[in-house]
């Protein structure tokens, strides 16, 4: 069993407490209707947002682009309510993740049943031979996970969320989140020819 710890990578506000938000001025201007300021915020944060969308979508670029667009449109709609209680980047990132999870919830059932991940044969997959290919292989393996298992793995092991947070956002019990994570890790280990 992996000995995982929560690394809270999604809460940089804690580490950056006391530091001024570098986006504060742009946020104020954007909140008053300045689209150029909002574009600057988009340019600054699109990479982080789109990266998260891609991971949650299993690398499906077109869908990730739709979700990234949705996230920024939603951010524009809600910007007037931003209270500077966290950094804008953190607020935006969290909002974007929620947009992706809402999309995932709306597709609940269909995709899990049509998962491309073959749990019966993945254990026979050849171990990764070359380190240079490992990263790509890992991304592919994560992308092939069943959507909900992938979401839990991405949120917990990559984005740093807790099971409690995942449970709330995905509408599942904490135990279910843990079970999905266990399932996802097991599938990855089998893909890479390792046993726990």
């Amino acid at each position, binding site marked *: 069993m*992996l000995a995982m710890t929560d*690394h809270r990578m999604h809460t940089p506000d804690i580490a950056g407490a006391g530091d001024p938000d570098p986006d504060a001025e742009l946020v104020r201007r954007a909140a008053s209707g300045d689209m150029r300021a909002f574009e600057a915020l988009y340019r600054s944060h699109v990479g982080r947002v789109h990266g998260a969308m891609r991971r949650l979508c299993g690398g499906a*670029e077109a869908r990730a682009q739709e979700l990234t667009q949705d996230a920024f449109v939603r951010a524009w709609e809600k910007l007037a309510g931003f209270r500077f209680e966290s950094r804008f980047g953190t607020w935006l990132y969290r909002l974007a993740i929620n947009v992706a999870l809402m999309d995932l919830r709306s597709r609940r059932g269909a995709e899990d049943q049509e998962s491309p991940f073959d749990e019966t044969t993945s254990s026979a997959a050849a171990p990764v031979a070359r380190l240079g290919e490992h*990263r790509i292989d890992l991304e592919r393996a994560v992308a092939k996970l069943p959507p909900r298992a992938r979401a839990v793995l991405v949120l917990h092991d990559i*984005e740093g969320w807790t099971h409690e947070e995942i449970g709330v956002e995905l509408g599942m019990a904490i135990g279910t989140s843990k079970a999905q994570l266990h399932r996802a890790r097991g599938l990855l280990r089998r893909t890479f020819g390792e046993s726990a």
Partner: protein
Amino acid sequence: MNDFELLRDLRAMRQPATPACDLWPQIAARIAAQSQSTQAQSTQAQSTPPQATLPPRRVMWPEALAASVMLGLGVLLAISSGDRAPGPAFTAPATASTELPWSVREAIALDAAYAAALEEARHSAPPPAKELVRAEREIDAAQRALEDALAQQPEAVHLLDLLRRTHEQRLRLAQRQVRVG
């Protein structure tokens, strides 16, 4: 790969990713379309007090506006029915004309020039066909939005080109009414 390596490698996947194409034009167009929709709803609700806090009025970003205007002009002739609305007149900021930015003065001149041509066309035209009335209103709304945006962002001089094209479209519509009549 052991467990430690797996976790390490998963964490390393948390990297930014650049979209395959620039998503900003679509985002800006969607925001502009929402702004127009919100404004239309606000206009319709003027006779009744608001039930909740309305979102703040947004200043339309010029390129987003351009996208929505082009979309509007593309479908305007397919829209039907409605009451005739008077064409908009550009209300310049309450500043002496000599103090206005060049772009705003140019917009006022455009408005005046096309207003004369439009009035002449209207004088010769019968009452507009129903299918054209809504199109007129769409163009007028786009024109007003462009003028508002230009008044607030006078440095966005490329809005003038859009404004000119909107005036031309409006005039062509009026001339079409003459031909139909």
